[in-house]
C-alpha cells in the first residue's frame, strides 16, 4: 500500500538524479480509503519527519484539501485528525509515481511501488 506517509519518504534514486527528485508525482491513480486507528500522540511525534509542502501538494492532487499551506503553530486534535487521514488512510493501489526531474516512472501495482532500476540506471 502506498500511503502518503510512504510517498513522503521516497525520492527518485536513478543515476545522476540528485536534485528536484522529490516529491514523485502521482499518475493514473486508483485511490482507496481505508480507515486506520487514530493515535494522536504518534501523529504528533511523526510531524517533524514530514516534508510539509510535498505532503500538502500531493494530498491536494489526490483531492484532499484538508491541510493548510503552513503547519499550524497550535497543533490541535482536528488538525491531527486531518493529518492522520492524509498520511495513513489514503492508499494508492494502482498507478505510477513519476520523478519531477528525470521523469523516471515507478509503477505501483497491487499497492506495491516498484522502485527497482535497470542496471544502467543505478547510480
Amino acid at each position, binding site marked *: *500500500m502506498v*500511503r502518503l*506517509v*510512504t510517498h*513522503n*519518504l*521516497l*525520492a*527518485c*534514486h536513478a543515476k545522476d538524479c540528485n536534485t528536484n*527528485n*522529490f516529491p514523485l508525482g502521482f499518475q493514473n491513480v486508483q485511490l482507496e480509503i481505508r480507515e486506520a*486507528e487514530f*493515535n494522536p*500522540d*504518534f501523529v504528533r*511525534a*511523526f510531524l517533524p*519527519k514530514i*516534508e510539509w509542502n510535498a505532503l500538502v501538494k500531493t494530498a491536494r492532487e489526490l483531492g484532499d484539501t484538508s491541510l493548510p499551506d503552513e503547519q499550524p503553530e497550535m497543533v490541535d486534535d482536528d488538525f491531527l485528525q486531518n493529518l492522520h487521514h492524509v498520511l495513513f488512510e489514503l492508499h494508492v493501489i494502482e498507478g505510477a509515481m513519476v520523478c519531477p526531474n528525470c521523469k523516471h516512472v515507478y509503477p505501483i501495482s*497491487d*499497492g*506495491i*511501488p*516498484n*522502485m*527497482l*532500476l535497470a*542496471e544502467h540506471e*543505478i*547510480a
Partner: protein
Amino acid sequence: MIPTPDVSHLTDKDYSIIYEPAEDTFLFLDALEADAGDLKELKALICLEVGSGSGCISSFVAQILGPSVRAISFSLAGIKVSLECINTSFASPLIHRLWHQVDIILFNPPYVPTEYEEARFAQQGKSIAGAWAGGYDGMQVTNEFLEIVEDLLSERGLFYLVALKQNNVPEIQKRMLHEHSLESKVVLQRRAGREHLFILRFKRQNPS
C-alpha cells in the same frame, strides 16, 4: 513470551519468492525479545526491515513495542505484508529523506556463499535464489548494505544483523567500528545444524 507472528496469510506462491521462517528467523526473534527493554526505550517512529521477505521480524518488533507505539515499518522486499512495502534493492530511494532517521533496522541477509555473478543475477531477479545467494563469501549483499547503514540509523537507533560464523563476525564488528563508528555486540548465537548463526547489534559509538 511473545507469540511468533502469524504468517498464515502468506501462500506457497509467496514462499517461492521469499523464504519461510527458519532457524535464522527464530534466533532473530529470540534476540529481539532479549533486547525488548532497549527497543521500547527507543520510542521508535521508523523501522526498516531489509530484504527479509515475510515481514515476520517487523511484525514481531511491533508486538514488542506494544499497541500504544505505532512505528512505521518498511519492508523492502516487494512482497505484500502488513507493512509499507517497497520493491527496491536496499534503501536507496529512502536515503534522501531518511538520513539518520531510522530507529530500528533489521537485516537478515542472503548469506549462503555463491559465485559473485550468480549473486548479482539473483539479486536482480525476484526469486528464491535472491534470498539465498550471498555472493562470493556470502558477504556481497551484506557489505553493500553495511556501507550505507550509518546513513540511515538515527542518533540512538539500533541495527540488527544476522551473520554466519564463516562471514567472519569479528572482522565485521571491527570494520563497522573503524569505518562507520558503530559499536556492536553479539546479542545471541546458536548452532543450527551445520550453521553457526549470530545476531549482531550495532549502535552509534557516541550518540549526542
